[in-house]
């Protein structure tokens, strides 16, 4: 009968379609997901130079990963928001990334925004990664905040040990009048005195100030053996003005001193500084240079490294079929503990243990004079 044939035909098609669908679902790989992660960096404003470097590091890692097929087929996509290194913008952006875009994890930079979002991260169980700031306040700001580079205090300890071992007993400090500089100054003064040294003078300079002469003159009159420098910008004018003064000091600093222009400046020869080790292979540096058009700076390497760590964590989680949430990522991070990333990191606390070296500038290049591991 016509109707039954029609019904029969309909049922046949229905069954065929259903079977096809089932087969399709069973036969095809689990449909590739996109894992969305967040990054809150200063992309405009005074921190933009560093923020852009950091963004490049993350993006290079992500592109590399996706080109290789992602993590078990899942691609990673990072949503970047600009916080201008300002805390209120960071809070707004954090809420946006978490509420609107549902990211489980956010990269951060600069201590201000990181400190401001830390309580939010605790409340909302979002893993936040800091791979740029070294302020001591970050060490305990939130159980959900993980720092992938040692604090300034760790670097200071290494340098103080070296200075005292080489018989330096008097020091003056030149520091930037902001969180990074004041933190470094406080740490150095405390540690150097505790190691038996004497602080003979201290002078602040403003962020962005490039006329160091008055401060240097004042410090010079105290006749120190060592000048400890904690500034984040203006290193080249500082190196030049130091050179002008024809002083007899040992000038020492932290990773802040590391930038290609300073290293290349012949006037900077003789400067020593602690350096968070962030050496990646020359092949990687070349590939980065080729793709991004600029040298892979310190912060690019830091964030690239941090991204590799995230990929390892995600890989473990996907294989164990864990839902990708901030809480799970955090648990997994501390479970894995030691990461074989390009710069290896170990976590026994919220802050990574990374080797810290001391480098000496030699007018064009740098030479490593000691190695050390932070405790």
């Amino acid at each position, binding site marked *: 009968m016509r109707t039954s044939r029609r019904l029969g035909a309909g049922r046949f098609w229905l069954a065929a379609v259903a079977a096809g669908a089932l087969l399709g679902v069973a036969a095809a790989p689990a449909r590739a997901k996109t894992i969305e992660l967040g990054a809150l960096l200063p992309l405009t404003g005074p921190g*933009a*130079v560093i923020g852009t470097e950091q963004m490049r590091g993350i993006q290079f890692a992500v592109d590399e990963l996706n080109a290789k097929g992602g993590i078990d087929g899942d691609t990673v996509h990072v949503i970047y928001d600009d916080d201008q290194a300002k805390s209120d913008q960071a809070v707004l952006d954090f809420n946006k990334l978490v509420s609107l875009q549902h990211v489980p994890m956010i990269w951060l930079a600069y201590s201000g925004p990181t400190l401001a979002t830390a309580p939010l991260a605790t409340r909302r169980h979002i893993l936040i990664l800091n791979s740029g700031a070294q302020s001591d306040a970050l060490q305990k700001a939130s159980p959900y905040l993980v720092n992938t580079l040692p604090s300034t205090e760790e670097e200071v300890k290494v340098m103080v040990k070296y200075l005292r071992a080489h018989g330096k007993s008097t020091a003056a400090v030149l520091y930037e009048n902001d969180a990074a500089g004041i933190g470094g100054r406080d740490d150095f003064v405390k540690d150097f005195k505790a190691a038996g040294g004497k602080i003979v003078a201290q002078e602040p300079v403003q962020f962005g100030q490039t*006329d160091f*002469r008055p*401060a240097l003159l004042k410090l010079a009159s105290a006749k120190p053996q060592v000048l400890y420098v904690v500034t984040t910008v203006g290193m080249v004018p500082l190196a030049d003005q130091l050179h002008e003064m024809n002083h007899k000091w040992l000038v020492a600093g932290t990773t802040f001193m590391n930038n290609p222009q300073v290293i290349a400046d012949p006037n900077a020869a003789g400067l020593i500084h602690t350096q968070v080790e962030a050496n990646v292979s020359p092949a990687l540096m070349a590939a980065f240079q080729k793709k991004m058009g600029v040298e892979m700076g310190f912060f690019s390497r830091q964030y690239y490294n941090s991204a590799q760590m995230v990929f390892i964590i995600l890989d473990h989680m996907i294989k164990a079929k864990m839902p990708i949430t901030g809480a799970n990522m955090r648990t997994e991070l501390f479970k894995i503990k030691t990461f074989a990333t390009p710069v290896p990191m170990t976590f026994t606390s919220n802050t990574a243990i990374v080797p810290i070296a001391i480098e000496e500038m030699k007018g064009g290049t740098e030479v490593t004079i000691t190695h050390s591991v932070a405790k």
Partner: protein
Amino acid sequence: MLLLQLLVNGIVTGCALGVVAVSFALVYATTRIFHIAHAGVYTLGGYLAWSLLAHGVPEPLALLGAMAGCTVLGAAIQHFLYAPLERRRATHLIVLIASLGALAVIQNLIAAVYSSDILEFTIPWASAVVTLGGLRLTGAQLATLALSLAAFVGMLWFAHRTLLGKRIRAVASNPFLAEITRLEPRAVYVTVIAIASAVVCIPGVLVPLDLGLQPYGGVTPLLTATIAMIAGGVGSLGGAFLFAVVIVVLQNLSLLVMPGEWSIGVTFAIFVVFMLFRPRGLFAAG
């Protein structure tokens, strides 16, 4: 020796600031516009020179080229911003806000094109050190001192000896009368801002030659320069220059007795007190 070196460094930087003060004073006395965008013109000068030098232009020409660029910018601000506002009978507040807007635009365009990084000039003679007795000065510092003083003397001569200068002073002292006697104040305004922009380019190039280029570094010097202008008395070019030097020298010397972080704060605090008790300045020209 420390004292002497601080003093000399202060005099060098003070003379550069003095030129900023004198050029700003010229504009303010004549047009009564608080031309805060002048800080942007000052900043642009350095960057223009840097670009020209990067293209191989010889140094004197680079300076002249930068001065030309600044002149154009200054004249454009007057012609396209201040003049239309004046025609629309805008209040003082609005003109101020427009000038602030122009400054923000200039600074951020510079930052967008050149990046916010501190840029360095790479001129050998600028960083060469000269020893005079116990004093050490760089080539850049010596050039700054020489050219700033020359610019100042030039401005004085211009204002008091040339016809144009006299015309400008006439307009400055009585715009209404100037209008009636066909001195054409508005044409004078463009000329004044053009000249002031060209002149401020000199420290705009020399100071970064010594200390590096930054997009947002113009506001504090300009404000200090306006303090100098007010303290010296509006209309007195000499007063503006002198006070600029005095303020910078005091800032430098204050390091001997005060922690460095307070020196700029103290400068403004002194000014605020000054404003309350002697607002007309020490050498007011009326």
